[in-house]
């Protein structure tokens, strides 16, 4: 297909062959070991997953394969070309989708595709044959004239993928293609990827932090802090937890998250997550379930269990020990039972209805989840609740008042953690906490005590002097939460706290939330990870501004279609609920156009 020395011989057995590569970055004064003696082979026609928490080195490895990062030690050969000596030959032959799409947002779908077709020298005749196939695959045909910036996250990913496929590449590199994509689009995207590999015999390397995605690949490379923890088939990696995986039932009135929290405190337990009203747990090597005083039923190990086992063996905190915390001064039990009451809330931006007659009620001490894809209206709802945005219609009460018009004392009852890191990046951890403490009117001894409490509870003591902009993602999140809890609020709002967080950080986060809720804090949280609904007492599913379902996790899960072999997951439920809502003709049709619904 391409004139070049490497192609004259028979197709090389390995599309990618990486031998012991190392890479060190210098950031300021610090040296960061991004890759440490990493090796990887990818056979022609295989699908390889790069899996690992943030900072594992997945993106650096993909960029190295694409010839975009210099190689300190070791060698990278792609399609028979040396990535260090001849990156252009590789770049002319492969397809690469970086994490941030690489689309020109003010160009239309068609123009973006044409640009890549022109750059790759795809002829008009080839386009006539190729475009209809890509359109059919991605379902973008209806939006050819729409600017890429006005597509939903899922549509952008599909367009990014289509752009890399205008010339059939020999190798496809996808860097976290499903980050920020709603479950429906995620499923569709994976169908495309699997189709390309299985039917078109494409070789693909996909990085992901979503462990269920790794299960669908031929091979997985498990990475942590630049090192390879394990490499093998997903089944082999899942097998590392063989015989140690169980499902435990919580007590009659006990939420699953409380049992999970208790189990995590037990040294015999390696990992535990609430799942379908039960707790899915992995025991440590040599510990039986009897060690936790339960008689749980054995379960099949999943990829995630193997992943956590391997991380634990690597000493990477496979046990989510962090996160247990106590409040210095738990909120008093209020007279009324309802913390938040929302009825018929509407918010419009011009013609666009961001929040469409939303009603719900949150009881004191509850964990309440607002679930939905990006653009569902979650953040807009949140901003109205916090008094940051005026509602277009309906009523809302937070701790008995409308924060938009209420005084400072009402705001004192509320803490808010924004989606983006909203603290002062140039200030140190302590300086930030100091500022927030004084902003909430604390002084003298009270302030010192409170800062001390926050540093201890959020395990920030050692980092007190670190400039907060340089903290790793998980620590930034802890600091944001600490700042929001400085004044001991009764109600805590968290907007997409786990977006972009890896499985370890997410476990730790939910651990803290569970602890806060146990001590009487009302927590209301938005997330696009459907399985996180399992941690909530009640949740609503929002899509295109409307509430499609509400209830306890069990009630929501019950609306899923029965899955062959295994219980339905929260994600199955979400997909079923959204598809059902979109199919209902008598109701106002939900915008299916793929337009991103303004601020969410």
């Amino acid at each position: 297909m391409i004139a070049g020395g490497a192609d004259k011989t028979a197709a090389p057995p390995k599309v990618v062959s990486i031998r012991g590569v190392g890479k060190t970055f210098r950031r300021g004064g610090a040296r960061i070991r991004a890759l440490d003696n990493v090796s990887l082979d990818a056979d022609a026609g295989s699908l390889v997953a790069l899996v690992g928490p943030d900072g594992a080195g997945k993106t650096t490895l993909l960029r190295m394969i694409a010839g975009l990062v210099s190689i300190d030690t070791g060698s990278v050969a792609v399609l028979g070309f040396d990535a260090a000596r001849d990156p252009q030959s590789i770049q002319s032959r492969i397809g690469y989708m970086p994490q941030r799409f690489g689309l020109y947002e003010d160009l239309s779908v068609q123009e973006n595709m044409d640009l890549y077709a022109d750059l790759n020298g795809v002829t008009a005749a080839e386009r006539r044959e190729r475009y209809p196939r890509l359109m059919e695959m991605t379902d973008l045909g209806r939006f050819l004239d729409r600017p890429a910036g006005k597509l939903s996250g899922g549509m952008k990913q599909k367009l990014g993928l289509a752009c890399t496929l205008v010339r059939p590449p020999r190798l496809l590199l996808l860097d976290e293609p499903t980050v920020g994509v709603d479950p429906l689009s995620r499923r569709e995207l994976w169908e495309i990827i699997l189709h390309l590999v299985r039917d078109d015999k494409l070789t693909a390397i996909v990085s992901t932090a979503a462990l269920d995605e790794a299960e669908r690949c031929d091979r997985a490379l498990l990475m942590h802090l630049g090192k390879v923890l394990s490499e093998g088939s997903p089944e082999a990696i899942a097998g590392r937890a063989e015989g140690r995986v169980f499902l435990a039932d919580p007590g009659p009135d006990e939420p699953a998250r409380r049992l999970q929290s208790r189990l995590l405190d037990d040294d015999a337990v390696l990992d535990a997550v609430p799942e379908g009203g039960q707790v899915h747990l992995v025991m440590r090597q040599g510990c039986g379930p009897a060690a936790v005083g339960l008689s749980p039923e054995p379960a099949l190990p999943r990829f995630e269990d193997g992943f956590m086992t391997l991380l634990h063996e690597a000493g990477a905190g496979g046990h989510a020990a962090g996160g247990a915390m106590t409040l210095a001064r738990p909120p008093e039990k209020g007279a009324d039972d309802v913390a938040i009451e929302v009825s018929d809330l509407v918010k419009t931006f011009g013609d666009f209805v961001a929040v469409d007659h939303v009603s719900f009620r949150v009881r004191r001490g509850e964990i309440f989840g607002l679930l939905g894809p990006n653009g569902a209206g979650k953040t807009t709802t949140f901003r109205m609740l916090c008094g940051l945005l005026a509602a277009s219609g309906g009523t809302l009460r937070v701790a008995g008042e409308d924060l938009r018009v209420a005084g400072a004392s009402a705001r004192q009852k509320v803490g808010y953690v924004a989606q983006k890191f909203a603290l002062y990046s140039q200030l140190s951890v302590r300086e930030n906490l100091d500022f927030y403490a004084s902003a909430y009117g604390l002084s003298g001894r009270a302030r010192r005590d409170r800062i001390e409490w926050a540093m201890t509870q959020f395990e920030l003591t050692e980092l007190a002097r670190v400039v907060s902009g340089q903290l790793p993602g998980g620590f930034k999140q802890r600091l944001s939460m600490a700042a929001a809890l400085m004044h001991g609020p009764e109600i805590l709002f968290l907007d997409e706290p786990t977006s972009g967080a890896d499985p370890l950080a997410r476990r730790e986060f939910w651990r803290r939330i569970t602890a806060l809720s146990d001590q009487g804090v009302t927590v209301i949280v938005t997330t696009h990870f459907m399985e996180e609904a399992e941690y909530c007492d009640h949740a609503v599913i929002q899509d295109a501004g409307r509430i499609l379902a509400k209830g306890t996790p069990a009630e929501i899960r019950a609306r899923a279609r029965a899955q062959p072999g295994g219980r339905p997951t929260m994600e199955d439920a979400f997909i079923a609920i959204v598809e059902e809502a979109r199919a209902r003709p008598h109701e106002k049709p939900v915008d299916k156009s793929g337009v991103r619904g303004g601020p969410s």
Partner: protein
Amino acid sequence: MTAADDTGSPRARMRRVAALVRKESRQIRRDPSSITIGVLLPVLLILLFGYGLSLDVKDVPVAVVLEDTSPAALELAAGFRLSPYFKSVEGVSMADAHEAMLQRKVDAVIRIREDFSRKLTNGGATVEVLLHGIDANRARIIQGYAEGAIQMFNARYTDHERSAAGRRGAPPPGGGGRRGGCGAARYTDHDRAAAGRLAAPPPVDARLRKWFNEADDSHYFLVPGLIVLVMTLIGAILTALVMAREWEQGTLEALFVSPVRVPEILLGKTIPYFGLGLIGLVLCILSSSILFHVPFRGSVLVLCGASMLYLLVSLGLGLLISSAVKNQFLASQFAVLLTFLPALMLSGFLFDLRSIPAVVRAITHVVPARYYVELLQTIFLAGDVWPVILPDIAILTGIMLLLLALARKATRKRVG
């Protein structure tokens, strides 16, 4: 299969550059900030500098304090009233005038004392002109106008007296003007000298016209100078911004993994903004000749050649800055500091390079805009003076080649 033939062939390269240029042009058309900086800002600068920032002063508010009501005094006051340069208020007391000056309701006070007409006949008549001296430049210009108005009166009076003397046989007396800066109660020697000069009026008409034409002079050098600002804005700042945006948004990362070579990416950026720069150039030239009637003594060809050269220098700087910082905010800061401000302050556009300190003057030698301003002023006002033009062109060519080479070196297919 469907893949391209040889991706390194000149034809394939040209096709890719064309695709990038097409993409960039579409982005320029759709991005309001590109249009703003590329077209709207030049127009705004032309109007602002052309009409707003001229050294021409019109309708200066003055208070005329008439303490003498003789026909001669009234005629002198009428001279101020009828002058297009003044907007006079008459019939005020000196105390009112003083107050108005303090509140800066007037920029000057013309005081005709009660003994004016007596002294006029006896010789040694004076008019006091009090100027608001805070804006020294403006005060100097108003001084010129006032002197002119008084000279005009002198001339008329002399004619009148001469014809009267022809009838009566009396010698013509000298009229006089005297002025002092506001707030400075004493008259300096310089003031006296000026007053003395006024007391003996020269032949009037020709000098007056020359004097007042100074106002148009400011347009003569401001409007051509604008071209350097517009070229710098489009070439350096806009290019640095859009290139940094591609680094920041990750679009370059995706572009890198394709048959595209780095020089093609740079060309794809250079060509459209070069075109945008030419539009700005045409706007400036047209406005300078149509709106402000700036004389154009050189040839359009030389002007275009020099401007294209400077545009390439700016583009080189913009590309270099963006590749070095890869961040829109920093790129804009650097571009303003390293290109726009020097072009404004150190190029000879606003301040004459001969009148700035030697150290600063030494620095201006590395400011490309300096050579371009010299070229512009020569081409517009003096003509194709090759001994000036050729060395400047040679220096700019050298700088351009250096910057483009550095930009090429700084832009590599590397991320992270």
